[in-house]
């Protein structure tokens, strides 16, 4: 009986954000859905990525708050960190969310198979390893959402103690005294920020000329200043060649530069798609030379009945919320409903470091590169009353708008923020960019006072020609 082919409208491979979103959205539309997951539904995001990382960053925030409480007249005797408790709290939160998600999946009558899946010809999916090994499920359509795994670097074998990736880092129960974060992208900066706030001496090693490549230069400057102030050393434009471990610490070798001796090396050099052994013979699905699945704007692979969503998709941002959006596009396409593809140039980005970074749309440099003449305004959080109240005034809001022939600011092309709670503030900027508002259209809308969001409002007013406070 084990090999009897089970029929579904949709078989989803992978239970991360892209996969479970597809399953939930498809089931909500009345489709019969099977979901194959090798580990736990929720995927990298819930178990080894976004959620645990942000929980730790919040732990760091709490510590920071206590450290600065004296300024408010509240004196704490001493600040001690028991990171095992922090780790346990993180696990509880993840577990609660996992149970909630599992219940939701069960409630929608989605069939979950446990194991590794391989797609064969004719949309046939075979479960290879795991509890449900041997199960064969055939879908009228199949959605590939196999996700990604951390990349590693040659010369840095991951041992889980001295050399770790995000997978191991998020399971630590003790934090190192010194650490090097290799890779100064979003994840690297979050880890560096969290470690520094928790008392670790951190060095960021980045091979590109700056950290946070892809962010607006203004935002990068804010981050570099903030990191420097907190003792995080940023060494950009360096190439690491390997390391020599010795008794609980290691020395990282840098091509043409001073070596760095640390207790732990955190690799955050990107994520590669988990597509090895995903496809059997005759699927007609195209994998590019970097291992990603090639899909069009409707998430369709070269096989018209096979879709791909999430981190496996070539040339798209590896973000959970992009996976959610792609899942909806894929299901609507399967249902034959009209749907607008994801506009990858205008998805929201959020980095939960201290200060936080959030942005959407074109940077000033990217806009110019695309041939736009631009008008730019920025407003630092220093003058914001709420920022003064919370004691967190570091940061800036910058808005890039298209320049009209008369020199005034037209359509808003990009909104870039660094500072307190900007990940929660981006929403207004996201709407402005995606609704293609001009500065004056967006500036006519009111921000509450006193709030951090007034800095965004002020920048809009200035961009529209006359600011209250900003010139």
């Amino acid at each position, binding site marked *: 009986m084990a090999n009897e082919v089970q029929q579904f409208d949709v078989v989803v491979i992978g239970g991360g954000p892209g996969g479970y979103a597809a399953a939930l959205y498809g089931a909500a539309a009345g489709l019969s859905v099977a979901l194959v997951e090798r580990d736990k539904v929720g995927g990298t995001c819930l178990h080894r990525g976004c959620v645990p990382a942000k929980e730790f960053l919040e732990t760091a925030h709490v510590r920071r708050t206590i450290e600065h409480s004296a300024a408010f007249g509240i004196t704490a005797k001493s600040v001690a960190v028991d990171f095992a408790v922090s780790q346990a709290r993180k696990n509880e939160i993840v577990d609660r969310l996992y149970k909630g998600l599992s219940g939701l999946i069960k409630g929608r009558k989605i069939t979950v198979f446990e194991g590794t899946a391989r797609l064969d010809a004719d949309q046939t999916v075979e479960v290879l390893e795991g509890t449900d090994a041997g199960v064969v499920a055939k879908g009228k359509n199949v959605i590939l959402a196999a996700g990604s795994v951390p990349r590693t670097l040659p010369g840095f074998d991951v041992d889980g103690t001295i050399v770790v990736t995000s997978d191991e880092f998020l399971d630590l129960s003790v934090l190192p005294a010194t650490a090097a974060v290799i890779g100064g992208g979003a994840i690297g900066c979050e880890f560096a920020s969290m470690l520094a706030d928790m008392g670790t001496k951190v060095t960021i090693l980045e091979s*590109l000329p700056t950290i*946070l490549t892809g962010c607006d230069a203004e935002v990068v400057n804010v981050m570099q200043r903030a990191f420097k102030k907190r003792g995080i050393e940023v060494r950009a434009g360096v190439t690491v060649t390997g390391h020599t471990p010795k008794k609980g610490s290691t020395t990282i070798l840098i091509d043409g530069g001073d070596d760095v001796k640390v207790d732990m090396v955190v690799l*955050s*050099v990107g994520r*590669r798609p988990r597509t090895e052994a995903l496809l059997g013979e005759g699927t007609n699905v195209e994998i590019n030379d970097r291992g990603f699945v*090639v899909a069009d704007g409707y998430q369709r692979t070269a096989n018209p009945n096979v879709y791909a969503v999430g981190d496996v998709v070539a040339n798209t*941002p590896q973000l959970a919320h992009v996976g959610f959006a792609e899942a909806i596009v894929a299901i609507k396409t399967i249902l034959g409903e009209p749907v607008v593809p994801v506009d990858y140039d205008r998805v929201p980005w959020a980095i939960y470091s201290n200060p936080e970074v959030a942005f959407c749309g074109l940077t000033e440099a990217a806009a110019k590169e695309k041939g736009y003449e631009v008008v730019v305004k920025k407003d630092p959080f220093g003058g914001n009353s709420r920022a003064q109240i919370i004691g967190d005034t570091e940061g800036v809001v910058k808005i890039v708008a298209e320049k009209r022939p008369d020199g005034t600011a037209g359509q808003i092309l990009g909104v870039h923020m660094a500072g307190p709670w900007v990940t929660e503030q981006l929403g207004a900027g996201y709407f402005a960019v995606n609704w293609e508002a001009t500065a004056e259209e967006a500036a006519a809308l009111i921000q509450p006072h006193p709030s951090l969001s007034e800095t965004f409002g002020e920048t809009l007013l200035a961009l529209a020609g006359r600011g209250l406070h900003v010139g």
Partner: protein
Amino acid sequence: MADVTLPSLGESVTEGIITQWFKKVGDTVARDEPLFEVSTDKVDSEMPSPAAGVLTEILAEEGDTVQTGSRVAVIDENAVGAPVSSAPTTSSETTDALPSPPPAHTAPATLAVEEVAVNGVVVSPVVRRILADGGVEPSTLRGSGPGGSITRRDAERAVANGPTDEIVVALSNGRRRMGQHMTSSFQSTPHGFVAIEIDGAIFDELETLGRSTRDGVAITDEMVVSLAAVRALGEFEFLNATFAGDELVVHRTVNLGFMRVVADDGMLVPVVHAAAGLTLRALARRVSELGERVLSHRLTTDDLMGGTFTIMGPASEHTLWSEPIIIQPEVAVLSIGAVRQVPVVVNVNGTTSIAVGRRLVLALTFDHRVCEPFAATGYLERVGELLAGLDLESEH
């Protein structure tokens, strides 16, 4: 790699104009999916892709005239779909999930998927307001955003072009072709015209017998009159003729054209070839098949070639007659009016009275170089006689 060539477009057609590519270079195309449109002086045809793969090269641009058999595109059967954006936005070896600067815009790749593309969709309230203020109806626009959504720029451009109650409409290929033919025919040929009213009692008989053939094909008034028209041509051969330069070529075979409207795209004249020997049943089937091909856009160039005489049926139940322009190089068009119930004068045993009868108008547009009103009237009268004498029961 598979070469895409311009296939034969029918006898005596050696070239066509590429009027539209449905795919761009880099787009994925399925076998038999419409790839490009080719226009000849007869018809526009959608050409199916001969292979599945990625369109890697387009060798004939829109507007180019191409000889049949020549290469117009290349399809890579081993490649797959265009990447969603061309810049590598995913992680390089040393950065994580941030975008590399700057990701290319995704719209072109996504527009390839026509069947789910949502044309004219407004995704922004700002854009909706711009269109509303400018009096532009969103459904009239083809957006340039992802999936055909209307961007601010599209909206502003459309508003600058004025409200949609005065839109400039480019003539479709079908209309343009019709216009060229009719202008040239009208200018080159002296058109003559006569009309007569004839008795339509035969249609009472048709009602009694039933309006479908033994094969189950619906019989129209146009078919019945056409049958008589074809048979009358045997006695008026000079009307079943075509001009070749200054010479008139009289045909023994009747290839009967039928004027047919194409929704929003002018008119076509598909031809029932070798119509002379056909019974009503056979003619009905052939006319009906042609009609289906017109509706499904599956007419071939051959269906449109070789006509020797043309029928214009009643456009509505109120049509008295129409005065079509001659389809070149033919010399006459028969217009059939609607069969109407009218009061008629009947004479029974020397007493006249008014009764309910059926009448229809037959009209002939003719080339005055070949024919004159007297002969044309003679032809129409003969059609009327043959119509009245049809043995519907045996031909049914």
